[in-house]
């Protein structure tokens, strides 16, 4: 038994070719069909008229191939990062290999960026992949100066690049979830660097700061590396890199770093650093438990 229920009226850009009609707000009626069959009667949304559905333009094959190549290059680079721990090679060689793969991937994505902001983000990422490659050649000591001047700014620029891509494009929710995960990982990289710095400034032994040991580092490395692989793949395949370059200027607000991604960085960092300072200041009490 079915019954129809009117619930919503809201607007959708209908891509109507006639310009006069574009200004008119056309209501779209949604109906809910309740299925009484079975225990799980979930409502299903139905369009009143099938021809009102938004038409998604298919991506041309040449662009799809480029997307695929970039996506698999990112997969290769991230997979190499996972297995690099087991390869007896100098760290700067591993770093150079992953950087070169990433630079190639981003160069391909630059050619199929869908708007100016995305292209800027892709060019920035090429620049900073080169910078990361060069940085890997030198063994940089882990001090307050190098961390605040070199390591954390690099992470901030990567967060800016990803936030710019997300904000400048209307990315599908499924892809957006994975791309914002890349931002989450970068935020956590930054905060864990700060954790080391706090430990160093409080003259703590590294065994009190870092709990990684033989049992734990491998599964963590593999699972989070796996999540990173999926995220990189989704980034290359999202609608931000679907060709159809739109040369028109976008609002300047999207270039602003005052967004929720940087808010997340600020809030998370301050909460975690506060907790770490409290933890390390009562180390004698905790070790006596």
């Amino acid at each position: 038994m079915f019954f129809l229920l009117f619930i919503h009226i809201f607007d959708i850009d209908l891509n109507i070719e006639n310009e006069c009609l574009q200004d008119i707000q056309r209501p779209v009626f949604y109906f809910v069909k309740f299925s009484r069959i079975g225990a799980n009667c979930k409502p299903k949304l139905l369009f009143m008229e099938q021809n009102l559905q938004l038409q998604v333009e298919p991506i041309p094959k040449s662009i799809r191939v480029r997307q695929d190549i970039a996506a698999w290059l990112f997969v290769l680079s991230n997979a190499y990062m996972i297995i690099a721990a087991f390869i007896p090679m100098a760290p700067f060689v591993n770093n150079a290999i992953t950087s070169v793969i990433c630079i190639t991937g981003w160069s391909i994505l630059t050619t199929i960026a869908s708007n100016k902001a995305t292209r800027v983000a892709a060019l920035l990422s090429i620049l900073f992949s080169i910078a990361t490659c060069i940085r890997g050649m030198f063994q940089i000591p882990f001090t307050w100066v190098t961390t605040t001047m070199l390591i954390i700014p690099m992470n901030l620029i990567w967060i800016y690049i990803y936030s710019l891509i997300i904000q400048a494009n209307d990315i599908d929710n499924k892809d957006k979830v994975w791309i914002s995960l890349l931002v989450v990982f970068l935020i956590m990289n930054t905060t864990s660097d700060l954790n080391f710095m706090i430990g160093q400034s409080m003259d703590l032994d590294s065994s009190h700061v870092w709990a990684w040991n033989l049992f734990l580092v491998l599964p963590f490395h593999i699972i989070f590396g796996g999540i990173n692989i999926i995220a990189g793949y989704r980034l290359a395949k999202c609608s931000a890199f679907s060709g159809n370059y739109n040369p028109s200027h976008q609002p300047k607000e999207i270039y602003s770093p005052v967004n929720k991604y940087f808010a997340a960085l600020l809030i998370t960092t301050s909460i975690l650093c506060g907790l770490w300072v409290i933890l390390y200041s009562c180390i004698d009490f905790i070790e006596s438990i």
Partner: protein
Amino acid sequence: MKQKFSILYNLEKKIWGEQTNPNKYLATTTIIFSAVIGALVSGCEYLNDLFNWHINSPTLTATFSLIILICGYNIAESIIATSTAKVAALRALMMTGFVILAFIVGAVASFIILLIITIIVVVFLVITFIKILLNEMTGTKMNGKKFILSDGTIIKKRTPSGDLIDETGGRWKDLGDGHVEKL
């Protein structure tokens, strides 16, 4: 498998619906890690205390530091993936609660499992010891080995002094070189 790794995603979708848009697997993965860390630390501490083993285990401060880091993943995701500040705060609190709960559950479960294993091993050792003691008192069984004399007598046990006992309870003295003598 997919369903198991998205338990918390389904839970928060039930509570907040469209207001949150988090990753399906991150929250559950971090919680599993928290439980594993709890199990590892408590197990190492237990083995250290009981057998004085020096396992390369993380210190308690380092463990709490790691738990704070894992909470950070959820806090950062909460701010990014939710639409309002209130939902973000509530989600972060809920996830932090789950991480701490998983840590405690992991620690307690590992302690209980190790305790049960220890009890089983101790009980097995005690039973084996008693068995050996009883055998020594009454004579050792010829475990699986058949020892038949030329007249057809089957030997069943060997006493600690080296004498042999047959099925009827008769005693034989082992002279060596395959010769026996009735006592």
